[in-house]
């Protein structure tokens, strides 16, 4: 990624377009042969020119209906795939937390999975080893950490995933609807940890459909509509307008 010119934690997007090609019925050679030369791939235009600059230390929430391009934008910033058009520069290291515990394997123990997931998120093995205790402590899984992951409840697995995620020291956290997991008490811990990360100057870009979470965490809200930035500003007014429209009140004549 060409992010070296930018300050760590800064995201700059200019005229970002993302077009997904969905060649119909792809997946079999039969379809390819039958459709032959005149196949036209179905196209989904997910982002239609997004301009966005995020400063270091901001916590930006993305709002928008399903299919408005939120996840696509997160994935682009997280470098899961590349934009079709436009420029995207990201300063510093990004940890894409689009799913907790990416790469977790049920047959491996908690410790082994922490190492796997941590390194996938960009830590070195040494760093993982140094943070191992903190990660286990945060996840509250001390006594189960040596047994295979398949014996964990789903709540325990998400807790472990979250714990690894917030112990990577990426400059930018890209978070998809996984801000708060587990029971009430653990959720409080999640929010406290996120506040801590914010204070230490990390940039957070996240998607959530829980407006209370948005208002609690975000310092700025960006509303996406049909792949474009519809509204951008302080959390309260944007959330209010968004809710008005969602509940069918005509926001504008």
């Amino acid at each position: 990624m060409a992010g070296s010119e930018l300050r760590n934690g800064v995201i700059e997007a200019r005229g970002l377009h993302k077009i997904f090609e969905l060649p119909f019925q792809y997946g079999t050679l039969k379809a390819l042969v039958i459709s032959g030369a005149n196949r036209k791939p179905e196209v989904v235009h997910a982002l239609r020119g997004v301009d966005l600059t995020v400063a270091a230390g901001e916590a930006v929430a993305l709002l928008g209906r399903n299919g408005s391009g939120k996840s696509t934008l997160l994935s682009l910033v997280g470098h899961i795939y590349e934009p079709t058009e436009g420029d995207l520069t990201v300063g510093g290291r990004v940890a894409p937390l689009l799913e907790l515990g990416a790469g977790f394997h049920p047959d491996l123990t908690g410790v082994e999975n922490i190492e796997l997931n941590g390194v996938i998120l960009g830590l070195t093995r040494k760093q993982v080893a140094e943070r191992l205790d903190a990660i286990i402590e945060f996840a509250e899984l001390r006594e189960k950490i040596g047994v295979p992951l398949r014996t964990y409840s789903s709540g325990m697995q998400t807790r472990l995933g979250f714990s690894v995620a917030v112990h990577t020291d990426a400059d930018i956290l890209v978070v998809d609807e996984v801000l708060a997991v587990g029971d009430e008490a653990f959720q409080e811990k999640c929010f406290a940890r996120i506040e801590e990360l914010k204070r230490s100057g990390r940039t957070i870009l996240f998607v959530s459909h829980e407006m209370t979470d948005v208002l609690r965490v975000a310092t700025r809200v960006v509303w996406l509509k049909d792949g474009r930035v519809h509204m951008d500003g302080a959390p309260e007014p944007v959330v209010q307008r968004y809710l008005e429209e969602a509940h069918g009140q005509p926001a504008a004549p």
Partner: protein
Amino acid sequence: MVSEFKDLLKYRELLTILVVRDLKVRYKNSVLGFGWSLLNPLVQVLVITVVFKFLMRGGTANYSAYVFCAMLPWLFFSVGTMDAANSLVMYREVMRKTSFPRELIPLAYVVANLIHFTLSTLVFLVYMAVGSIVWWRVTGIWDFALQPTVLLLPIPMFGMLLLVAGVSFFVSVWTLYYTDVLYLTDSLLKVLMWLAPVMYFPEVLRERMPGLRGELVYFLYMLDPLASFITAFRKLTLAPAKMPGSELITQPMGGEEWFYLGIGILTSGTLAMAGYCFFCKRKWKLAERA
């Protein structure tokens, strides 16, 4: 491609972890662990030996050792290719959520299989050595088939690594796009096994077709990197043997075999580079195939 490669070096820790993960998952959850993975080739060799020795009466002393020896690199090729072919499909969800260099995925399976191949080879060498010594103590016959050239085995093994990696880069991408490729590969591997000198000695070609035509066929046959690697692997390991159904004794590793081994390494190196370029051109598109 050079910058891609530098990027890859930065991620070697992740490669290590993915390899260890694969090996752990493979050897865990079973009592025999590593033993199981040797059981399959052992059973195959046993069947082959019985068929050749007793049913077809083409007995060569120790024939099973020669088959098993060739089976080791063959299994590295076939299992490695199939594992890698499946790899991107298996990591589909992981790819959609993470951003590490995608080539690590097929490579991890190739390296895991290389380690497995090395371990199996070591087990085989120890078995051969101990077996010969026991045989000598019991019968008084000194029939030590292992050659001192086993020390050169890393050369054909390196060639195999290039070959498997090269094939894997192509096959893994194609399989992600078209599941059919997995079945095609599987069938193709069955054919390839008989095109390579696993169950027989390559000298049989020359014996059946004397003269210029045989030489030509042999030359073309040996251009297949698998044929040259397996031949080298076997000849570096075991002493020449009497071929089944014939009075001929096979040749030891000689200039000709080294020549074909060199060609095989060149071909495989080219294939590996081409495969890597092919893969890298597409690697950030792979996550979009959901």
